[in-house]
């Protein structure tokens, strides 16, 4: 059997003894695009920073990270440096501060070409210009020697993507790549990511709190809560019929741009402090469906009949019709 491109097994992370990631099992196939959704602090970014060894020294990471069967978790600096940018590239939330302010854009891209593709001098410049062109930077040749602050936020994200593509990675981790951008620019970047994936065939992990954005680019989605995956399934499946009360709550909380205006349905309470997780299911104190068992027994992430995986003792029942919102605002 051909191994998956990336396999995470029981990935755990603790900061100063406080566990923030409680054993993540996740596979990413070749060319596949997986979304990770959840609110801030749920561990969606930490998962991949940990996998690539990019967390600060005080973090302790255990578990297994395999790339095509090869273990890299706890690997030497050399092993990790080869994987980073070469096999797995990463782009981040705030593009303007993710580029080095004192280094010319051209050099930041050619640097990656030198490491992973041994391109130098004119060859590197030509390739960098091609990449800048590919991600939609107009007039690349003239702007090759500019500094990051001379580009807008959207263009900085394009440049980050160009830099990520430089190493011809098999997997691109996009960590909230559109969150800091304006609405019309967000749409452009999402469009660009979809198009690049189609052209290069690379796999993608798209980390976002924006379910709308995730549904534009992902085939499979994992919902995370308090350092665990609570539901995982195909995008259409999960979006049409979320089974975990938390996933369902996330959908309900999003205001809608169409249809009748309704009162929003928030999830009560707040995300628990990782230092002080509730017993049983971490979501139980905020869950309207929780029963006694939820407060004492931790549900495991297990496959259910329709192919998705779910960690819940009392999943939201399946209804054939799309979810109906009950409480409406005044007539509109």
């Amino acid at each position: 059997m051909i191994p998956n491109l990336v396999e995470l097994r029981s990935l755990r992370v603790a900061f100063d003894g406080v566990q923030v990631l409680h054993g993540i099992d996740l596979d990413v196939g070749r060319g596949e695009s997986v979304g990770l959704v959840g609110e801030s602090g749920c561990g969606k970014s930490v998962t991949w920073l940990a996998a690539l060894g990019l967390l600060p020294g005080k973090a302790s990471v255990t578990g297994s990270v395999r790339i095509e069967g090869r273990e890299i978790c706890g690997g030497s600096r050399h092993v990790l440096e080869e994987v980073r940018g070469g096999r797995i590239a990463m782009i981040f939330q705030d593009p303007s501060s993710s580029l080095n302010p004192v280094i010319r854009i051209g050099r930041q891209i050619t640097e990656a070409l030198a490491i992973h593709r041994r391109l130098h001098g004119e060859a590197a410049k030509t390739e960098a210009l091609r990449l800048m062109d590919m991600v939609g930077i107009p007039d690349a040749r003239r702007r090759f020697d500019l500094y990051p602050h001379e580009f807008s936020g959207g263009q900085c994200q394009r440049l980050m993507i160009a830099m990520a593509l430089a190493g011809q990675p098999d997997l691109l981790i996009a960590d909230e790549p559109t969150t800091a951008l304006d609405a019309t620019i967000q749409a452009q970047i999402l469009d660009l990511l979809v198009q690049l994936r189609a052209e290069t065939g690379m796999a993608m992990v798209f980390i976002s709190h924006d379910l709308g954005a995730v549904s534009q680019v992902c085939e499979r989605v994992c919902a995370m809560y308090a350092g665990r995956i609570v539901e995982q399934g195909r995008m259409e499946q999960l979006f049409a019929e979320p089974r975990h009360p938390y996933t369902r709550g996330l959908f309900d909380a999003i205001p809608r741009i169409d249809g009748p205006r309704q009162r929003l349905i928030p999830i009560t309470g707040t995300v628990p402090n990782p230092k002080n997780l509730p017993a049983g299911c971490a979501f139980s104190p905020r869950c309207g469906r929780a029963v006694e068992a939820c407060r004492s027994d931790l549900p495991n992430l297990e496959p259910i009949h329709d192919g998705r995986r779910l960690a819940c003792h009392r999943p939201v029942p399946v209804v054939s019709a799309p979810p109906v919102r009950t409480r409406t605002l005044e007539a509109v």
Partner: protein
Amino acid sequence: MIRFVLTRLLRAVMTIFAVVTFAFVVLRMSGDPAQVMLGPDVPQDAVDAFRKAWGLDQPLWVQYLAYIKSIFSGDFGVSMRDKVSALQLVLERIPATLQLTLPALLLKLLIGIPAGVYAALHRQSFADRGVILLAIFGFTIPSFVMGLLLVLIFSVILGVLPSGGQDTWMHSILPTITMSIGGIGILARFSRSAMIEVMGQPYIRTASAKGLKWSDVVWGHALPNAAVPIVTIVGFMVGSLIAGAVVVESIFSWPGIGRLLVVSVTNRDLAVVQCILLMIAATMVISNLVVDLLYGWLDPRLRAQTAH
């Protein structure tokens, strides 16, 4: 660009002018050179003759205008004591001072910055704590205490190094160390905090995420960003190359500018003191100017700063 340099130069000239004026007034109000030079028992007519000869009988503002006029014609006056050109006296002493301050500056840079960077990269480690402790030790102990301590240890107890004078290179060891320790501490502290801040920035994570070697991340991506605060401190140190040795030269009887300044102040040798102060102000101001220009070179964002 030219406009920027010109406005800065103008400001620099005005700063020097202010220092010169201040020195002129204060010096003349703080004691009578005639009394000091001639001694207490000299008859009044000798004092009057001395005053007339040096122009001290004129009103203050007349003296001041004459002084400013002579500065612009390159004449910095004549030493009342040695009866030679004040400028010449001062210039003669500069090499001796630089013989101490330049190696000291080099030590500060070569030890302070790497120590700070190392500490920043190994936070909370034994080495980091050691660097912090030594840095605090370095810049809290005044140089006269440090100097005397070193003399006590290396000259008096161990007897391996001379305690004063300028005869051999051995003589410069203790004063150089005394002078550099505080600066090493300050630079180590600043480099450490600047590096810690930079290492936490998203672009450092980006640099690591693209597969750069750790050393390239540190030296190629982090250090250039940490350079601005470090350069500020280094600029200040360069600015005090001439003035920074007053105490140390006195302790180690080193015949440099600092000693000359102390002696001239005691003697109320007006021209010499004024000339030294002018020189000190000029080096400070020039190094400040250079630092400002360096900022723009180090950080492209400052070149295109948007001001309200």
